[in-house]
């Protein structure tokens, strides 16, 4: 994670190296398909697409039982990747919830239209958090280096078209960047 405040507790200084090693080796024993080397994992993934979302001014609903709710209507945008490209149809949105622990939960639903007229329903749930000054700058509509905050999503897709049916069968992860005019998500397919 980018900022130290978000790091999990370091193993207490006596963390037995043996345990760490054991944990690092376990995936190999489990037959996982990802390579683990020296505690770092090479998760196999490949770029799926970059999604650029344009949004209308947010609807600030204020304090609700689960936190602070803001609804962001999506007015359009585009997406492009090696296997698909096209535009985002207006009408979706992102139902944001700022939790009591200052983590922003994202809950997006949009419809993509490929350049060959296939419709793809896309949703994601995600998290955004970071140091107070970075989050405050984003709140003021400023440009902030995305490495300064954590903005990750789990996109899911539905389509009836055979050409894009592979989208129905994948797990994906998005790395988000909040920009003044909308959000940009670089989405990887997990292999």
């Amino acid at each position: 994670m980018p900022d130290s405040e978000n790091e999990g507790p370091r193993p207490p200084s006596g963390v037995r190296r043996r345990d760490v090693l054991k944990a690092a080796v376990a995936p190999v024993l489990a037959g996982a398909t990802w390579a683990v080397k020296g505690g770092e994992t090479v998760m196999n993934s490949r770029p799926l697409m970059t999604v650029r979302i344009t949004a209308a001014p947010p609807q600030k609903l204020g304090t609700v039982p689960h936190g602070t709710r803001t609804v962001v209507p999506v007015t359009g945008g585009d997406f492009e990747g090696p296997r698909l490209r096209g535009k985002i149809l207006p009408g979706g949105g992102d139902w944001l919830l700022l939790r009591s622990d200052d983590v922003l939960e994202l809950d997006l639903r949009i419809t993509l239209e490929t350049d060959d007229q296939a419709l793809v329903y896309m949703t994601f749930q995600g998290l955004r958090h970071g140091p107070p000054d970075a989050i405050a700058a984003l709140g003021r509509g400023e440009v902030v280096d995305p490495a300064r905050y954590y903005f990750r999503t789990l996109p899911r897709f539905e389509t009836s078209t055979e050409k894009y049916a592979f989208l129905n069968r994948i797990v994906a992860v998005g790395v988000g960047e909040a920009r003044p005019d909308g959000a940009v998500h670089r989405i990887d397919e997990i292999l």
Partner: protein
Amino acid sequence: MTSRLLMTLQVVVPPPQKLGAVPQGTRVIAPITGGTFEGPRLRGKVLPGGGDWTLLRSDGVLELDLRITLETDDGASIGMSSFGIRHGPPEVLAALARGESVDPARYYFRTAPRFETSAPPYAFLNRLIAIASGDRRPGGPIYTIEEIL
């Protein structure tokens, strides 16, 4: 995609409850009676009482919907839920159905776990996105869970 190991989780699954054809597909509920997890920052056991509500879709993809409670070795409770996908060549899925051990590289079994806890030492779990690679074993699956950095 940059990640680091969060934990390896093994759950114990007794014979599943086969509900058969429901409107959304073929529903099989796998109760989870226990298990263990271990990683660099946490370790402990899986409490009995959870399960995996699996749905075989019409396109041959198995959707997983798991909910369990983890208990760390220092007594913290962690709620875990995950959505996942499993699919592969018919002969591989047939071998899994017969309870055989199959190289997990031969099928796609990925999940996205989410965690919630009130225990401060583990609050980092509330703030991360994770991806797991699954290995379906006869006694229950083993998940290698990675934190997405």
